[in-house]
Structure formats: C-alpha cells, structure tokens
C-alpha cells in the first residue's frame, strides 16, 4: 500500500522557509533529502534537541502534498514547549529531526473517485489543505468541498490558495463558518457549525462522499455527530482530533 512505509530513522530536516498564516500561526517548510514521500493527510513527528541533550517530540499534520516540500503549519500554544519555538525561534537554515510519514487511515488518494467533504475546525485545516493541494497537483476532477470553522476572519489560514480554489476556475467549494465574528458581507450569522453548513448538493449522503473531519476534540465530536445525523455512512467518516 502506497504511503504505508515503516517510519524508521530520524531524518535531518532543514528549515527552508517560514511564512505567516495569521498574526501568530506559521507554516514551516523543511528540506529533507531522505524523505520517502507521503500521502495527503499523514503526519510527522518533529524532534527538538536542547544543548543539554533533552529532547522533545510532537506530531504535526503535513499541510502540503508530496512534491511540495515537507510542510507543517503550527499554531503556537501559550506556554507550550515546542510550538512557540517552531513558530518563532527556530532559525531558517537550522536543522531539526523528523520521523515519518505516519498514519495510514486519515489519508486521501488522488485515484479515489468519490466526492470529498472536508470539515475543518481551526488549525485542523492543515491536513485537509494537503488534500486540497494534492487534488490540484494530481489534476483530479474529484468534487471537493471544504467547510472551515473558525472564530473570526483573522484566524483564516492558507488564504491565497483557498481564495484561488473558491474562485471561478478553482474547482473546489469553500464554505466558511465563523463562530464569533463574521467578516463584512457574509450573510451567515456567526455561530456554531450546524447541519445546514454540511448540506450541499453534490456532498449529500446519497452522493456518498468520503468525509474527513479534523479539529479540536469537541469540534470533531460535534461535526461527526451532525454528519451521522444527516444520514452519512459512519464508515465513510474519518476523523482526526487534536488536544
């Protein structure tokens, strides 16, 4: 099975670029000469080593598909040990260690013909973005819809690519759910993800979409329950939860 590699050794990974997604979140792209490739949706272990030999490891979803570098997108957690260092301090040109790719379940393969419904809560958009980008890269015409729940417009990640996908020729349906503050001109009142947000022609239960839900635990529980309640087959809903 493609992508189901045994994640053996720790690989040297050099930070090549760090770009801002929001005021605080950053996407880090690493150059990893020995990277075996990955499937959209997989994650990676990142290992940091202090001068005294202390090591810390955290898992991050890959936010870009194979062929576009090894990219992770990091929301720094207040008082976190690893995420503020990655988002703010690790110098471009410096090395960390990576192990992966990991996870063979929450993945999208370009040869899959089924419509895809992506449901993101906050930073849970990262692995779903890898799927959108893998779709574009493969040239697949698979119908994709992203439902992206976020607090307010300033929290939106991957703006350029998402605006392009949502544009006339982008070919993907992008629907925002602002839970606290909606931007000007958006009709939907700010509020929690609802069944209506998940119901769109082309991605209804009878269309048998493959559903990927990623975000904080409470969000994923809520979104997956809504999908089951709408009549989606539980076996076609894949979830990944943070925190």
């Amino acid at each position: 099975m493609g992508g189901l590699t045994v994640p053996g050794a720790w690989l040297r990974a050099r930070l090549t670029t760090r770009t801002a997604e929001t005021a605080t979140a950053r996407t880090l792209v690493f150059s990893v000469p020995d990277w075996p490739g990955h499937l959209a949706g997989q994650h990676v272990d990142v290992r940091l080593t202090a001068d005294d030999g202390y090591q810390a490891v955290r898992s991050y979803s890959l936010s870009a598909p194979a062929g576009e570098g090894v990219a992770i997108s990091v929301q720094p957690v207040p008082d976190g040990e690893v995420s503020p260092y990655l988002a703010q301090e690790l110098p471009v040109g410096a090395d960390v260690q990576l192990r992966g790719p990991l996870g063979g379940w929450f993945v999208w393969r370009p040869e899959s013909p089924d419509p895809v419904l992506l449901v993101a809560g906050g930073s849970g958009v990262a692995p779903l973005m890898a799927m959108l980008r893998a779709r574009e890269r493969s040239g697949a015409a698979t119908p994709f819809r992203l439902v992206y729940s976020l607090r307010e417009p300033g929290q939106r990640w991957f703006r350029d690519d998402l605006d392009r996908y949502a544009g006339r020729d982008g070919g993907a349906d992008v629907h925002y759910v602002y839970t606290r503050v909606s931007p000007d001109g958006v009709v939907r009142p700010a509020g929690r993800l609802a069944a209506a947000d998940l119901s769109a022609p082309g991605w209804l239960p009878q269309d048998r979409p493959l559903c990927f839900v990623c975000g904080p635990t409470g969000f994923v529980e809520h979104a997956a329950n809504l999908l089951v309640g709408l009549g989606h087959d539980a076996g076609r809903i894949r979830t990944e939860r943070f925190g």
Partner: protein
Amino acid sequence: MSGFSPGFKRFHRSDDPRLPPGQFVADGFPVLSAGPTPRIERDTWTFTVTDASGGERRWTWAEYQALAQESPTVDIHCVTRWSKFGTSWRGVPVDAFLAHVPNGAGYAMVESYGGYTTNVPLDDLANGRAWIVHEYDGAPLAPEHGGPARMLIPHLYFWKSAKWVRGIRLMERDEQGFWESLGYHDRGDPWREQRTWGD
C-alpha cells in the same frame, strides 16, 4: 551543541519516573478515534468471548454488572505522546471472562461496536492487568470515551484499550487489528516505545 534546533530549551519538567520515554503529561483527557462515536444502548449491549475453536460465551449488561467489580487507579499513555497519571475507573478484570473459556490461545483480538479491532497478546489481557470498565472518575463512561464500556489495558499504549468494546476473540496465531495493519505496533509497550512497525 547537538547540531539540531539551536536555542531550544527544556520547558517542562519531565523527569517524573511515571512518565515513559517520549511522553508528556496532559492535563485534559484527549480523545483519539478514527471515526464518529457510535451510540450503544446498555439494553442491547453484550460482551462475547470467542475461543480459538469458535465457541462463544456471552454476557448481557446486567450479567456484566453482577460480576465482582474492581476500581483500578492507573496511569495511561497514548501513542500520540500524552500521558495522564492517576486515572480512576470501575469495571471487571478480563480474567473473570477468560475463566469461562478454554485456554491455550496465545493472542486475542479485541472487537468493538463500530468495527474497530486491536490485537493483544493474551498475557497482557490476563493476570489482573486489564479490565472491561464502565465508569471513569466516578461517573458512567461517556460515549466519546468509549461508553457504555471499554477495554482498559493501562500498561500498553492506549489504542489497545479499545472503546465501545463488544468482545474478545481468542487466536492461536497473532493477527493485526485496525491500527496495527496501518503501521502501529503489535504489542505497544510504552516503556519500550513500541509505537510503530519496527520499533
């Protein structure tokens, strides 16, 4: 100098002897599962042990509740690197179920409502080291944490502690469960960091 991650410093104290290598202490109780949470009614819940030759022994919820209960307080360790100390549960040791079926099998497949499976060496399920639990922290186990009942095998990574458990199938030869067939380890000992294939 390590040559890696210049300027990175230890932030958390992680020299607690209860913490296995590569883990950190979580404050909450994170949830890890692969799909939606199934809703299972206690009225229709059953727990089935299938021996290696196909013989079955089944317990209803009331029969399970009538078995001698224990209240283990244990540390748990998730392969996603969080650990939580001193979690308290209530349930029935797996030995109480295994006592009713012929022994001799070396392995078991733990099976769940919703289709999840995980393989566990029988030694790890027996000997007072695993329970079928229905309470967490003094309250009925919530569906997202595996209620009405889940496996609890605290000495292995927590994906072995299958939620929504409905039975155990004994096997003479090891087979791979859900995560194990996707790259995770057949045994999953956190003290040996048996996370994935090859560890």
